[in-house]
């Protein structure tokens, strides 16, 4: 007879409530990994969607997401004519903040040349840019709709939403948006007229508005990423960062802090869960000490008693894990940023839960093994 199961069956409500409590705790642990994986996926969504082989940026910099890069616009033409390059597109990146009606909106804006590399992927409604000015494609996570006007720049020029993408955000979590390169350059480099006049009056030349941040390069079939990158570096005095490297910079530097932050928090959570699970199992065992003494009295070997405690601990941990997973699956859609639950992470958490339950039951097992059969005789 499985004593652990019988005890659970007899005390269904107590077990259910305990599993719910443990489940909520484990739910938070699962959510934490989901938030981390979500941030990672978000950070990589943009470079992956752009599908470039090389990112050409200002010399000795690591690319547009890691640090500022400013190169002349004609770089795109120069690169395009190099051997091994099939296509190239000039792009700019910047964060813009504005209001649509009463609602504040923050966007990570990419400027690109229509018809060249760098345009929005996965458009789910509307279409890409068709005109050279004042059109914008935004991600649905911005909450904007087709046909809405988004005022941008010092003069609040109205940009009309013509297309929507899904699941495209910056590594900081801001929704992506795409405008024509010329618009983007004006937004990034143009200064208000008063400031421009002051700059001229003080004898400085007005800043150029034709610069770009990076050139995306796609190679022709058979061309070597390494060789082309080396050529670009040597002849054009630019850095050419392969896509894989760009991704690793993103994961390494941009979200490294987040990883450490979440890692620490996970550690604290796991420790707290371990203590709580241990306490619960210990309490459940202490509640059963009299039954355990009786079992010894009628002749049950320690093996039967230990199995009862350990199985119950595992049942509690696994049910809690299941409850936590279901809870998070239910609420993950309401998180402001992507919560991505990976099977690999679940398996790791499951392994940790199992170890914690086994370790946690040791305290209870110790108390159970020490109890004297004669205690079954104590009246009460």
């Amino acid at each position, binding site marked *: 007879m499985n004593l652990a199961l019988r005890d659970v069956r007899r005390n269904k409500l107590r077990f259910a409530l305990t599993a719910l409590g443990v489940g909520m705790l484990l739910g938070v642990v699962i959510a934490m990994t989901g938030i981390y994986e979500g941030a990672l996926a978000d950070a990589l969504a943009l470079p992956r969607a752009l599908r470039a082989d090389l990112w050409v940026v200002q010399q000795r910099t690591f690319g547009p997401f890691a640090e500022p890069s400013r190169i002349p616009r004609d770089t795109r033409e120069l690169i395009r004519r190099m051997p091994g390059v099939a296509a190239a597109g000039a792009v700019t990146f910047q964060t813009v903040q504005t209001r649509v009606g009463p609602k504040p909106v923050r966007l990570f804006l990419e400027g690109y040349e229509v018809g060249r590399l760098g345009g929005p992927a996965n458009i789910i409604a509307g279409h890409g840019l068709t005109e050279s000015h004042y059109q914008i494609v935004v991600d649905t996570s911005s909450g904007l709709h087709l046909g809405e006007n988004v005022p941008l720049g010092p003069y609040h020029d109205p940009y009309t939403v013509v297309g929507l993408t899904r699941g495209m955000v910056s590594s900081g979590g801001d929704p992506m948006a795409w405008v024509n390169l010329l618009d983007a350059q004006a937004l990034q480099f143009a200064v208000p007229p008063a400031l421009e006049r002051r700059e001229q009056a003080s004898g400085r030349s007005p800043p150029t508005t034709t610069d770009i941040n990076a050139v995306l390069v796609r190679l022709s079939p058979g061309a070597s990423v390494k060789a082309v990158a080396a050529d670009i570096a040597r002849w054009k005095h630019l850095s050419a960062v392969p896509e894989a490297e760009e991704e690793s910079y993103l994961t390494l530097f941009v979200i490294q802090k987040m990883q450490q932050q979440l890692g620490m928090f996970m550690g604290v959570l796991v420790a707290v869960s371990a203590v709580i699970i241990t306490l619960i199992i210990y309490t459940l065992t202490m509640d059963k000490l009299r039954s355990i003494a009786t079992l010894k009295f*009628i002749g049950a070997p320690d093996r039967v008693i230990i199995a009862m405690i350990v199985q119950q601990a595992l049942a509690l941990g696994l049910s809690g894990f299941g409850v936590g997973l279901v809870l998070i699956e239910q609420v993950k859609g309401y998180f402001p940023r992507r919560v991505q639950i990976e099977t690999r992470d679940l398996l790791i958490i499951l392994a940790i839960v199992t170890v914690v339950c086994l370790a946690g039951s040791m305290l209870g097992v110790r108390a159970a093994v020490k109890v004297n059969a004669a205690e079954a*005789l104590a009246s*009460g």
Partner: protein
Amino acid sequence: MDESLPFDRLPRVELRAISKHFGRGEARVDALVDIKLTVRAGEVVGLRGPSGCGKSTLLNVIGCVTEPSSGWMQLDGEPVYDGRFLRSDLRRLRLTKIGFIFQTHNLLPFLTATENIAEAMELAGIRRHEARERAEALLDYFDMRQMRAYPSELSGGMAQRVAIARAIANSPHIILADEPTAPLDSVRAGAVMDLLTRIAADQHAAVLVVTHDESIFHRFDRLIGMRDGRIEGEQVPAHPALAP
């Protein structure tokens, strides 16, 4: 073992010079002093005496729950104590040879009546299915219907009957009962004594019952008195029907 004795006269419990003390120095309590006792198969023996005289301690020593301080003890023809326990698997010995009945029923609260009995059999190695069937048959024999009830849902008398059923589940040759009728009215106490008498006869078991209950004294084959840890005398109670 004395082969010349008929089967139902075999000694099941034999104690020689068994002593037990708790504590030492000032705090020393001599709970059992030089106990000599034999209980034979089929015998139902009563044990009486004032509170603290060592009755429960004697039962616990026979049940190998408490280790004696000195002496010699043989259970079911097998020496188990001779200055020290001679077996390491005392729980196994209890499981197969000894049935215990407590004053409070001591059933496992999370098992049903049937399961409580079946568990004792499963622990002794009987297959789950068979254990269940035999448990149900046993409850039937005890006129119990509420097989799926939990101990907390049973009356005191019913719970005690389930406990007795559990104690005899593995057909033990020795049954030890510590005030089994204390929480019961005289009718139910009589029923419990009927059961114990029947088991002693049917299973050739030696039954040793601690009791203060004078209304059942006449049910015993022998009544042993204890005082201050010593056996003080023995009487064969007169059956009420035979009394003048």
